Each structure stands twice: as structure tokens, then as C-alpha cells.
């Protein structure tokens, strides 16, 4: 019923490479479509162990979703990702819209020795801070990961679907929103790494509040950037219309102590982005490349050449975006996906021309 294709590369039965100790059992990048008139889609993957696997969908609409239709209702256009079983990955939205949306996600199966526990879940509600009780974790070894959302906002207020995750305590996850009217299902992963896999884990937020600045920084505890990966944790805006030039920004790990959020246009709108800086032990990361790129108004795809990586051990994350467009968001022109095409090429794709997207990305190559 649902169309799918496997992108680029498949399973790596990883063997520890020279100079490193692999924590990766497999990495699979897949495309999934929710067909017109349905509210879910799925695709078959090579079998993974559910106890050790997660899905990266970046910042949802900004990095993990795209569409060609001009439909902009929030309930039609947002989706979350999940593992139905060990061979099926799916995405779901709340409506049965008469157009398709497509996700590009990456399923990462860690080695059993790398994680103590993985939980997947969601919060559901209309609140500014909806919570989910989780099984207790050791917070100093645990990272949250945004898993997308489905919104019950039947209008075009895309700001209502933005939420950021917070590991409030060892037993509680909170999904925060700055515009909260309709019900929102905010999905998340909780990844508790085994002792010795990470050197540090720090959840942080970068916010532009109360002024017309175009950028802001947050100081984090010093990390070595060449082995520190950012796990997307969602983003917020206090403006319902979600004009991407001012209500969204892209995140960068500027240096070992600084994370920066950048938007195109100074405005009174308050925005924030959340991520977790996971500094892996030196044995586990082969390389990390980072950059920013502009998908021009006339682009539907934008390729970036990178230093060669082993694709079966690599994970690309888009860290959200801004734009020069000051109109309310047009999903077909500003939602985008990210994918690894081959060992030296990464690609960003939006559904239609008409507006630009300025985004940041991070390419992590594990041993």
C-alpha cells in the first residue's frame, strides 16, 4: 500500500575499524511516504534489535520531512517516526489529508554493549509543558532525541506544532511549547548509553528572546568538537504563523564551549532550539564534518561535497534552518529532508521552488 525505497546504503555489520571501537551495529537511511488519503506509511528495513535502535528525523519538518503539495494545514503536514517492529519503520500524522508527505529518516542500531536502555514515547496534550513518565535513567549518560510530532491544529498555525524536549529528571520528559492551543503529540527517544561510551552529555538550549537579535549563543561545558555530536531536541517559537526568516534558526556548535542559534531577520519573536551535546569517547568517532548551506529560491535539491566517509557508518543531521522569506511558512517550499547520497555527497531536498532555506548540518562518521 505504501511506497518506499531504501536510499543509498544499507546495513553495516560493523567490524571495529583500525584505530577505533565500533558502537554501531547498523545504520540504515530510508525514505517513507504517507500516501494521499492516509495517516501513516511504513517501509521494511533489515532487521534491527528494538532494544538498541533509534530513529533520527532531525528537527522534523526542518530536516526530516518534505512535500510537493501546497497544503499547509498543520495536522496534514507534520509527522513522527517510530519502529513498529524489528523490520518496519513508520511515520504517522494525525489527519488523512488528500496529499502525500515524505520523510527521510535514519535508523541507528547501536551495539548492545553501547547502550543500557532505549525508550521511545510521546507526550500528548494542549499544554505549554506536557510530560511523560519514563523508566528511571542515569541522566549523566542519557540523551533525548526528537522523534517528530503530529498536530491536531487544523489551520496553518505551524508554530503550534513546534516543541522542544527536556529531560526534566531521571524519570520525566517534558515537551515545551511557546504556542499551545491544539493537541500535540510530541515524540521522543531516551537513549541511556553504557558506562564508558560517552565522556560527557549536556542538554542545552539556545534562545533569542525579548529583542530583535539575529543570533544568540549558549555556553556549554567544554567539549572536544571532533568527537561531540548534537542530538536534535526540537525547537520553539512564540509566533503561530511561523515565518521562517524570524521564527526559526539553525544551530551550530561554534567551538568547544559555544553553541549558536542564527536567524535571518531580527524581530520581537522569541525562538529557541534544543539539542544534547554528546561527547563520545575518542575510540568511537572517526570524523565529524559541519557546515551551513543555502538552498536557493530556485533549488529543489542542493548537493554538498564532503570529505569521503564510510556511508554505512555515517549519520547526517540537519540542525534546522532559517530563510530570507518573511511570509508565513510554505511547507512545500521550506520543509526539507537531508540524506547521504554517496561517500562524498550529501543532499538536501525541498518539494518546490519559490523560497530559500538556509540550514546547518552535521555529518558524523563512527568507527
Amino acid at each position: 500500500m505504501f511506497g518506499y525505497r531504501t536510499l543509498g546504503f544499507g546495513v553495516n555489520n560493523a567490524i571495529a575499524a583500525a584505530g577505533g571501537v565500533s558502537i554501531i551495529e547498523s545504520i540504515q537511511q530510508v525514505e517513507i511516504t504517507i500516501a494521499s488519503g492516509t495517516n501513516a506509511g511504513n517501509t521494511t528495513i533489515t532487521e534491527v534489535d528494538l532494544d538498541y535502535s533509534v530513529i533520527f528525523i532531525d528537527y522534523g519538518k526542518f530536516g526530516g520531512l518534505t512535500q510537493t503539495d501546497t497544503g499547509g494545514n498543520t495536522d496534514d503536514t507534520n509527522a513522527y517516526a517510530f519502529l513498529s517492529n524489528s523490520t518496519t519503520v513508520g511515520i504517522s500524522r494525525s489527519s488523512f489529508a488528500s496529499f502525500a508527505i515524505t520523510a527521510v529518516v535514519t535508523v541507528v542500531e547501536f551495539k548492545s554493549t553501547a547502550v543500557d536502555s532505549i525508550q521511545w514515547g510521546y507526550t500528548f496534550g494542549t499544554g505549554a509543558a506536557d510530560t511523560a513518565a519514563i523508566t528511571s535513567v542515569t541522566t549523566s549518560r542519557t540523551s533525548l532525541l526528537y522523534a517528530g510530532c503530529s498536530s491536531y491544529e487544523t489551520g496553518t498555525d505551524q508554530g503550534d506544532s513546534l516543541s522542544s524536549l527536556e529531560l526534566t529528571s531521571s524519570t520525566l520528559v517534558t515537551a515545551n511549547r511557546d504556542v499551545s492551543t491544539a493537541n500535540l503529540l510530541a515524540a521522543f527517544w531516551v537513549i541511556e548509553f553504557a558506562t564508558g561510551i560517552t565522556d560527557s552529555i549536556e542538554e542545552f538550549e539556545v534562545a533569542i528572546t525579548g529583542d530583535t537579535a539575529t543570533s544568540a549563543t549558549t555556553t556549554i561545558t567544554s567539549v572536544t568538537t571532533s568527537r561531540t555530536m548534537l542530538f536534535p531536541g526540537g525547537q520553539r517559537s512564540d509566533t503561530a504563523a511561523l515565518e521562517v526568516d524570524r521564527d526559526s534558526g539553525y544551530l551550530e556548535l561554534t567551538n568547544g564551549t559555544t553553541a549558536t542559534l542564527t536567524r535571518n531577520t531580527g524581530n520581537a519573536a522569541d525562538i529557541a532550539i534544543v539539542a544534547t551535546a554528546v561527547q563520545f569517547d575518542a575510540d568511537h568517532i572517526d570524523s565529524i564534518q559541519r557546515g551551513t548551506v543555502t538552498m536557493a529560491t530556485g533549488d529543489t535539491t542542493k548537493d554538498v561535497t564532503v570529505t569521503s566517509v564510510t556511508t554505512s557508518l555515517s549519520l547526517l543531521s540537519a540542525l534546522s534552518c532559517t530563510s530570507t522569506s518573511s511570509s508565513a511558512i510554505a511547507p512545500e517550499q521550506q520543509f526539507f529532508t537531508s540524506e547521504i547520497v554517496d561517500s562524498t555527497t550529501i543532499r538536501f531536498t525541498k518539494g518546490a521552488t519559490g523560497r530559500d532555506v538556509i540550514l546547518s548540518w552535521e555529518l558524523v562518521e563512527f568507527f
Partner: protein
Amino acid sequence: MFYYQFNTEGFVTAMVRSKTAPEGVDYFASDTMLSMGRMKLDKETEEVVYYKYSASEEDTNIPRIKIATKDINIRE
């Protein structure tokens, strides 16, 4: 296992898939439920009732699913 959390009115507020139950979470199911946002627990029958997307009425096209409590789980 999928552990479901409901508010006092019975509407779902959260779900977590975990090997063990989060503290204070009483209801679970062995399989995930899609279209899971708009659902409510019938505490008398311990069934999950789906609601229509745009209305506060039960969607009878989706079968009710029995959900268990931790007390039942203990006996398994």
C-alpha cells in the same frame, strides 16, 4: 511493552515503550496503537476508546483494544 498514561478524565497524556514500567504508570499494552492521539480509557471495561478526529464522539470504525493494568502484569 507500551505503557500508557491517562489524565483523570481518561484521555491519554503520554506513552512510553520500555522494558519496565515507569513509576506510577498503571496501564500497558503489548502492541503499539497507531492513530493513538485521540483515545480515552474506559476504566470500567479497561478498553481504549478511539475518538473521531474532529469530534468528541467514539470512532466505531476502530476496534476498542483491551488494555491491562500492572496488577494483571504481575500475574503473568
